[in-house]
């Protein structure tokens, strides 16, 4: 270890500086900014009104128009401009994929962390509850909740958060139990550190990689879950576009109008990928044991 300590850096670099050096991360970040920007600026950059069923947007036989021409990405089954709908849809999908998924992560982390750290009866109750929720068909829960509360974007986001925290909680629980048994946590206790301090300063940072993995994987699953809910009639209500419900509305047309499935599908992949690129890099950068390896 002597060799490693000789080249000690005097000034520690901030995480951001190190993140900035990673090309892929920056590329991912650019994509994220692009997507978020597109969502925010949708009213200004969308070529058409996303809700307007254009008179010339359908053929005589009621078929949607393929990409090219006046409608860059084509039109949908109601003759609306697909590009404009995708741009507006980014808003919904970001709320679902980032906010709802984020809430699910937070709930899952809090429950898993609490159960894993305190064990005992609190842990037992929380984990049994988690087991119960895991055994409970998520889709049914979603349908019932949405039907009871009347579907709207925020209800949908809430429902998704309610069904999606379970897996995270399980994984975080396992990880936390292992961490809590480690010596440095015992060391903190002997230093007189308070429980919140141990939880937030010493355990939580170790869960970051796991949270990032589940968070990025969760983006596409939640966006698709919203679509499934739309399909079941308990998702975001039409005509509000979301990437997921654009796919689901049009999926039977994958042969005759493939663009209606391909473009929103690609958008979801890109969104998930962009967050993943940033997440992966962030995980590496935040892990001091990998410091200097970049």
């Amino acid at each position, binding site marked *: *270890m*002597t*060799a*490693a*300590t000789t080249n*000690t*850096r*005097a000034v*520690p670099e901030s995480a951001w500086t190190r993140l900035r050096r990673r090309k892929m991360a920056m590329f991912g970040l650019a994509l994220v900014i692009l997507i978020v920007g597109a969502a925010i600026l949708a009213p200004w950059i969308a070529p058409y009104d996303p809700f307007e069923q254009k008179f010339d947007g359908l053929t005589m036989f009621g078929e949607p128009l393929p990409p090219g021409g006046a409608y860059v990405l084509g039109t949908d089954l109601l003759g609306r401009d697909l590009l404009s709908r995708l741009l507006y849809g980014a808003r919904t999908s970001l709320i679902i994929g980032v906010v709802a998924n984020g809430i699910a992560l937070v709930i899952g982390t809090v429950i898993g962390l609490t159960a894993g750290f305190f064990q005992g009866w609190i842990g037992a109750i929380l984990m049994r509850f988690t087991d119960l929720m895991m055994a409970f068909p998520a889709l049914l829960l979603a349908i019932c909740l949405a039907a009871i509360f009347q579907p709207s974007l925020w209800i949908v986001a809430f429902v998704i958060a309610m069904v999606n925290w379970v897996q995270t909680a399980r994984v975080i629980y396992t990880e936390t139990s292992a961490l809590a048994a*480690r*010596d*440095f946590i*015992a*060391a*903190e*206790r*002997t*230093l*007189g*550190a*308070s429980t919140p*301090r141990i939880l937030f*300063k*010493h355990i939580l*940072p*170790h869960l970051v990689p796991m949270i990032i993995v589940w968070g990025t994987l969760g983006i596409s699953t939640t966006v698709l879950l919203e679509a499934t809910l739309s399909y079941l009639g308990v998702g975001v209500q039409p005509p509000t576009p979301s990437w997921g419900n654009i796919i689901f509305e049009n999926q039977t047309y994958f042969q005759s109008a493939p663009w209606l499935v391909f473009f929103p599908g690609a958008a979801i992949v890109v969104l998930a990928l962009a967050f993943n690129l940033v997440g992966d890099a962030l995980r590496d950068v*935040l*892990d*001091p*044991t990998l*410091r200097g390896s970049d």
Partner: protein
Amino acid sequence: MSADLKPLTGANMAPDTPVLSVQDLTVAVRTQGGLLPLIRNISFDLARGETLAIAGESGSGKSITSLAIMGLLPPPAVRVTGGCIKLGDRTLTGMPEPELRAVRGNRVAMIFQEPMTSLNPVMTIGTQLIEAIRAHEPISRAAARRQALEALSAVRLSEPTRRMGQFPHELSGGMRQRVMIAMALALKPDVLIADEPTTALDVTVQREVLDLLRDLQASHGTAILLITHDMGVVAEMADRVVIMRKGVIEETGRVDDIFAAPQQPYTQALLAAVPRMGQGGRAVPRPDAPVVAELRDVQVRFDLRGGVLNRVTHRVHAVEGVSLDIRAGETFSLVGESGCGKSTIARAIVGLVPHTGLIRVGDQTVGTMTAQARKRLSAATQIIFQDPMAALDPRMTVGDQIAEPLLIHGTGDATSRRARAAALMEKVGLTTAQLDNYPHEFSGGQRQRICIARALALTPKLIIADESVSALDVSVQARVLDLLRSLKDEFGIAMLFISHDMAVVENISDRVAVMHLGQIVEVGSRAQIFGNPQHAYTKRLMAAVPIADPRAQRPDTPRMSGDIPNPVHPAGAIVARHLMQEVTSGHMVAVPG
């Protein structure tokens, strides 16, 4: 097993040609700043039947050298950039992987530093042995099995047939290391590389493993390349020794010569640092000093649950009725073999495990405590854990970790805390520039010092040092011991020192207690214990210590091959307590029976 030698490669080889020859070996790691050499121009020869020791401080390149020989340097960054390694008349450097594979295990075998993690946890011992044999000899499974059994018997593992079906976690560290040795020797290699084979083991087990290596060498004529930082082990085992430092060879020579007349200043310093029995400094028993920690009939048991209702069926009687006093300014040592309950006592004192009986530190009774009382206790007593890497949060800078107790106890502001952390860093011999580094960027010894600095931040009355120096190489160990000693003198801190290394204990302690299976079997002043050990167990511990003098002759000790004594009892069982008898004033010994 037969004692005849496996013929060496090629008939044209003269009997005195070295089996292994390393010439001008340079290994470098590829970094962004270009190739960075880890070892430079290493040359040595290993003759048949010889034991060559490579010694040197941590990070000097010992393991890299051995991995280079095996062709197992971690890809892709680290590789051999110069020199050559010859096994008999075959050049290993640059040899294609399939050929190299045939050499590995068959001609050159290796025992790794970590017996705990070096065996595959999900395969039985038998399978792992058999596959090693069958990888090189085209024999039937049954034949390989017979051979594996022979190897296990050869390393004197008890009940070899049963062991074949067991998994690594079912064996103790010593037993695992024997399995590793059996595996390495099953194919009767020409060369055996043993990388710190005993560092992770306690003295009694270390003793056995070393004896075993020597016996096997005698019967098979294997050449051994022994890597260690323990000069005691070097003195006992090696014919010749190579001293490495910072990637280069400092000195090579016969063991006797080096120990008698080291040429290089580094070697001299290294040898001077070796703690030797009988060299203990002044010991000042202080019967009148105030008691800092008081333990009365302390008992710690761990529940093992089972059954439909998940009820307690068994208990680990980790600590069974221990009473002792630690007085201000004294160093109280606790010794005993692995698993006897030393760490558990330490943890009970700082309130990490629940106990029955009385533990008082200062005016604070340890037990169910409020957050406030917990804080007060932590101000009075601090523990330095066995494994410094595990005891530091890998994701927080060491500066923050040293300052953390101050923050928790609300002392000072951010700048004053940082200043204090910097001062503590310097006190333990580190530079303030390293405040913002993370634990993994320090060597083991440095990490231990960081733990000490953190423990000192609150100026406690009692410091518990749990095996704080066992894993360090001698030079670092000496530095840390000096540090502890000077801190003790400076602040009048009492210290509970836990170790299985008798030489270190003798050097540092005022009083010593010997533990066995959760109970104290002998307690007294250092002079009383070392000068006049009474209990059989104490005597055995003493005898196991390697002596850092190649001329010293150790009396043969009876060998054991059994299991670690087991402190697990069915729930409700009553464990017999030892009766203590005073031999001389302050020297208590358990009555046999």
